[in-house]
């Protein structure tokens, strides 16, 4: 299937004055090249090949075989979806990959185009239809499983679909008489609502959200219209003219990337891709040509945003009272969910191995960026960092002092002992605390009195607990009657300081135990425990890193024992569970769209 057989030296060919630069393959050197994973990529489909270029430079990266490919789309994680007529499916390709990581069945339909819901991860597929039967829209929840089918009696052939930033789906197509139809499937509605535009679209093309408006490409007018939708009425509030676009009007896809550029097939000979400025329009600024074979035509394209590329957040996120943040080492991102519903609402990017997390009284979330050597603060529902504090080691987790607002971070060291850094009021320069007896540290935790604890390991792998008492200036060991086989992290549960052990023994094997402890004159005395059972398989080890205890208030303000533990068993990729607390036992529910490799989590409650 794949054939990365071409290593193509690119030449920048400039034509007559004012002509856009053209990127083409002047020679083939016959060497293999693998797709780059580090940057944004442009995927272009012809019926039997997918071509990959860097974006926005347009440098050829590779190509691989597909079958009956139609118009692709990409999701917020950079995954690319390619609808295929013939196999009647949609293949999912990871960013920079060429082999499908998943295949969605669409048997008996004509998958034409797709769109990924930024708020949920659902995938909508416009199924074109047949001469003898109209099409429909298939929606795959979390881009998985069997789709729910939706149809609009006004639409016979479905061309394109596109989600807005709130999860409303817009589709275009034509009715039985061949007239254009534009419709909306509201986020919470199960039926289409037809939208009457104030101007006629001559030949409906791509539908896509540009960051402010839903847009419709008019292939006959060679234009992209920005539409403001109010109920069943749509008003075209702006138009971008694509000068020089010689479309064949047969349903080629255009793609808006970042609201700043247009990538659009140029049907001059049906084998070109042109870049136009958006929303300015005018002449193309770049043309990619010469790659797409002699007998084939370009059908569609999408831009896959690289892992670590961009953060996004649903505008509705700030208004959601409880948000779950999950660090994922597999993608170097932090995924944000509506805690109550489990629906994805955002992704935070730019990390290098995001690890433990903590929240302050206001609900701001601090995330340890392990390889990034920093802790990063985000507002509840915010997509841009509020603050980034550089650490002197590899941060594993953090905690906020409820009394002072100080931020404590536990760090691994590249060599030698780790340390704890404390920033007064979570700003300025930190104070460092280290002790050879506290050689390796796990996520620290403040109790309600401002005492800071951390589970530790000595240089010779003996496990215990270290403490910086409130007002103290040194880190020292503290005795405890808990036996910790493999630390998991410390956290205030609203009533007790808790220690966790990822390797507690039980009759069912290794489980994760959370020990509730009281500070006494002699140290930490265990008063209770919570056992977390059942991961992905019965009798399988349950190792939860930094289990997060969810209360009714943010951790530093919480004075009532939490009722839920949220965390992931690291033995079970792509799972995330909730246990009753302090009862423990089997997990009570799961997150449906869990990240692949969760290594830290928190729940932020808006105040």
């Amino acid at each position, binding site marked *: 299937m794949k054939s990365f057989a071409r290593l193509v030296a690119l030449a920048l060919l400039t034509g007559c004055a004012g002509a856009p630069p053209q990127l083409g393959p002047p020679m083939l050197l016959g060497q293999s090249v693998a797709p780059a994973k580090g940057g944004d990529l442009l995927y272009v489909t012809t019926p039997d090949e997918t071509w990959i270029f860097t974006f926005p430079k347009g440098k050829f990266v590779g190509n691989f075989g597909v079958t009956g490919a139609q118009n692709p789309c990409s999701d917020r994680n950079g995954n690319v979806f390619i609808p295929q007529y013939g196999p009647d499916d949609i293949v999912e390709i990871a960013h920079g990959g060429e082999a499908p990581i998943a295949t969605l069945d669409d048997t008996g339909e*004509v998958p034409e185009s797709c769109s990924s819901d930024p708020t949920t991860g659902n995938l909508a597929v416009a199924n074109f239809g047949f001469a003898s039967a109209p099409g429909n829209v298939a929606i795959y929840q979390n881009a998985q499983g069997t789709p729910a089918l939706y149809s609009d009696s006004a639409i016979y052939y479905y061309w394109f679909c596109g989600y807005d930033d709130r999860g409303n789906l817009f589709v275009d197509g034509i009715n039985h008489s061949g007239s254009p139809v534009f419709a909306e499937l509201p986020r919470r509605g199960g039926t289409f609502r037809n939208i009457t535009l104030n101007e006629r679209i001559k030949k409906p093309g791509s539908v896509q959200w540009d960051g402010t408006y839903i847009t419709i490409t008019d292939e006959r007018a060679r234009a992209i219209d920005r539409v403001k939708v109010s109920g069943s009425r749509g008003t075209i509030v702006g138009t971008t003219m694509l000068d020089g676009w010689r479309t064949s009007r047969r349903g080629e896809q255009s793609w808006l990337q970042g609201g700043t550029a247009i990538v659009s097939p140029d049907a001059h000979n049906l084998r070109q891709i042109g870049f136009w400025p958006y929303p300015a329009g005018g002449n193309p600024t770049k043309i990619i040509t010469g790659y797409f074979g002699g007998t084939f035509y370009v059908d569609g394209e999408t831009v896959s945003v690289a892992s670590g590329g961009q953060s996004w957040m649903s505008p509705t996120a700030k208004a959601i009272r409880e948000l779950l943040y999950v660090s994922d080492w597999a993608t170097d991102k932090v995924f944000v969910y509506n805690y109550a519903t489990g629906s994805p609402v955002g992704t935070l990017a730019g990390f290098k191995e995001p690890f433990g997390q903590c929240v302050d009284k206001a609900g701001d979330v601090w995330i340890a960026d392990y390889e990034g050597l920093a802790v990063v603060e985000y507002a509840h529902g915010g997509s841009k960092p509020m603050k980034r504090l550089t650490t002197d080691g590899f941060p594993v987790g953090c905690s906020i002092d409820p009394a002072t607002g100080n931020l404590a971070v536990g760090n691994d060291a590249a060599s030698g002992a780790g340390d704890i850094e404390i920033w007064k009021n979570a700003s300025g320069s930190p104070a460092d605390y280290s002790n050879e007896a506290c050689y390796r540290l796990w996520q620290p935790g403040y109790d309600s009195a401002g005492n800071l604890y951390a589970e530790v390991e000595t240089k010779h792998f003996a496990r215990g607990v270290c403490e910086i008492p409130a007002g103290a200036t040194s880190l020292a060991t503290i005795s405890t009657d808990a036996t910790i086989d493999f630390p998991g992290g410390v956290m205030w549960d609203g009533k007790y300081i808790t220690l966790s052990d990822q390797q507690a023994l039980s009759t069912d094997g290794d489980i994760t135990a959370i020990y509730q402890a009281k500070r006494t004159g002699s140290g930490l005395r265990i008063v209770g425990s919570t056992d977390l059972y059942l991961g992905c398989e019965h009798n399988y080890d349950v190792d939860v890193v930094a289990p997060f205890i969810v209360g009714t208030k943010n951790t530093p303000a919480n004075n009532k024992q939490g009722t839920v533990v949220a965390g992931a068993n690291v033995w079970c990729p792509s799972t995330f569970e909730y246990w009753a607390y302090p009862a423990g036992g089997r997990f009570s529910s799961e997150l449906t769209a869990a990240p692949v490799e969760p290594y830290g989590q928190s729940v932020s409650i808006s105040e």
Partner: protein
Amino acid sequence: MPHSPSLAIWMGFARGTAARPKLTYVSEFDATTVSAYTSDNRKNEAPVCQSGSVHDPEGIATDRFGNLYAAVGFSGFRGYGIATFAPSCGKAGPTFNEDLGLPEDPAVDGRTLYLTNLDNGSLPVTVLVYNIDAGSQPVGELTDPSAGEGLGVAVNSHHDLFWSTTNALTGHGQVIEFRKGRLPGRVLKATFMNSGFPGGVLFDKSDNLLFVVQASAPAIYIFAPPYDAPPASTISLKASAVYCTLSVDQRQIFCLDYSNGSVDAYAYPKGTYLYSYTSGIESSEDPIGIAVQ
């Protein structure tokens, strides 16, 4: 080698402008001639003449001069191609070679001759392009990765070529357009079928595309230009046919019913069934091609 008389002689004969009788040609795969009937044959009369001999004829077509083109095998195992005959069962004309596969259906556009093969042994199948004035070998080849088996070809008034095929992956029918008869092709998604097997394609004087579909409910789907909307209308056939042809005045459409061995006439564009004739047509002979002059 296939018979190939002087082009100049033949073409001179074929370009005559004298009034010609309105005839309907019918080919049967197992017959050795192509039979010609009075076009409005309500009385079920016998053929008025026959063109031949031919070997394994499939689809047939006529040009604007009335010359007949038949996709055939050349007798004596001398390969496949197109046999031609002067109007009104006239003498044989030049032949055109098809060395790739099984010739299925020809179409003529001025001096350009197209021939789809049904199956050339490997996907995708092709449409061969001939210059009628440039000898017996093809001068070009059209194809598309989605084409499975080629069934029919037709050209509209803009010289765009339309090719009915099975989809290589689904096996169902579709039509592929080649603007001005040139690559690349583009599948007309509005013609996607979800059942049945495709037949031929043809155009009426308004450039509506007629797509014959063989199915349990055989029909002709009619698409208005630019062929991206659902069928503007559908004619239900009383029995399956691979090919149909419009009468010269386009008030009737004739389909060759291979199950019953008959030419079935329908009013066009209404699609009302009018009559059938069977004289000299045997279902056992695999009737298939039909064309009018």
